[in-house]
């Protein structure tokens, strides 16, 4: 009758059960600790009555109640925790967007600089603003759209997973270190690109430099307009989803 291939691992099952709850900000780590302690007591009792480990686990977790129902009740107690969690994500979002913007503009500037080199050596200046503008603007837009797409994909695929990872990073020192180092490296990236630009810019003759700047401004201006449009569209898409999710349609 039995077709279970792997033996039941109680600790792993409890760990998975706990991780399922950990995705919700309604539970503080202490709440989870207490619920797990309860679950283990309950399982031990059921096993004493002669149940197998897997049966005991399933009955004990059923008696505990569903994660959604528990989340609602705990959420009423941990209101500040939920709002702190939202504030955390807002702050992460603001900093992430600011960071993406500065990186994108640094990359587009870098692309304009690299692209303009051959023209400068040819000595032709008249086409410079248009050429620089197009190059800088296009790269800007592409980079921004790519950053949005990657962020969107990541959040959609592992939204709760990422949240749980971040929550764990608060307690695990290795994860925290990884986060801080990655953040510092990313912060250093855009000044590094800009430094390269400054070096290039100083080599240009005053008239070339003027044309170059003009082109950059054209590109950045049109790109930021489209960038805002993209963010507005994204906001509308999310708002629509939220509305549909609420009405259950």
């Amino acid at each position, binding site marked *: 009758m039995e077709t279970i291939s792997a033996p039941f691992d109680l600790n792993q099952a409890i760990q998975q059960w706990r991780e399922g709850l950990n995705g919700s900000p309604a539970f503080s780590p202490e*709440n989870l*600790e*207490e*619920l797990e*302690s*309860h679950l*283990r*007591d*309950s399982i*031990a*009792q059921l096993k004493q009555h002669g149940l197998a480990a897997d049966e005991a686990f399933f009955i004990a977790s059923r*008696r*505990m*109640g569903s994660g959604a*129902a*528990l989340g609602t*009740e*705990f959420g*009423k*107690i941990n209101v500040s925790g939920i709002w702190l969690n939202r504030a955390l994500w807002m702050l992460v979002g603001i900093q992430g967007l600011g960071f993406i913007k500065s990186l994108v503009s640094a990359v587009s500037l870098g692309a304009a600089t690299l692209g303009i080199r051959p023209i400068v050596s040819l000595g032709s200046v008249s086409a410079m603003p248009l050429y620089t503008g197009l190059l800088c603007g296009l790269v800007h837009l592409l980079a921004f759209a790519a950053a949005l797409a990657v962020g969107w994909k990541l959040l959609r695929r592992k939204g709760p997973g990422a949240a749980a990872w971040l929550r764990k990073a608060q307690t695990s020192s290795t994860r925290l270190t990884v986060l801080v180092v990655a953040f510092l490296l990313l912060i250093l990236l855009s000044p590094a690109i800009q430094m390269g630009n400054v070096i290039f810019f100083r080599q240009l003759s005053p008239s070339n430099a003027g044309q170059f700047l003009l082109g950059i401004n054209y590109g950045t201006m049109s790109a930021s307009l489209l960038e805002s449009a993209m963010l507005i569209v994204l906001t509308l898409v999310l708002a629509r989803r939220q509305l549909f999710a609420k009405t259950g349609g």
Partner: protein
Amino acid sequence: MLAKELVAASTVPLVLSVLTEGENYGYALIQRVRVLSEGKIEWTEGMLYPVLHWMEQAKLIESEWREAETGRKRKYYRLRREGRKALLEEKLQWLTVHETLSKLWKPSQPRLT
């Protein structure tokens, strides 16, 4: 089985009353109520904890993590003075309901005379 509303309303007085027997942890608290009620009062077990935490915030009870004899840590709850006062008030109210209903349900005997 008790109606859902009645289970919800009686949780706080039940917890306070069990804790007058001495400090206790969540799982044992539920067991005690189950045994005393002969299984008629059945809580969704996880739901007890938000109530306990609310009672703690309201300063009716206090809690402490301690190592149990099994070697695992458990969170023990204990009555505070405010909790004893609240229990007295609860007792009065539940007894009022009980006495009123009892008077209404009794008269079958006197009527026979």
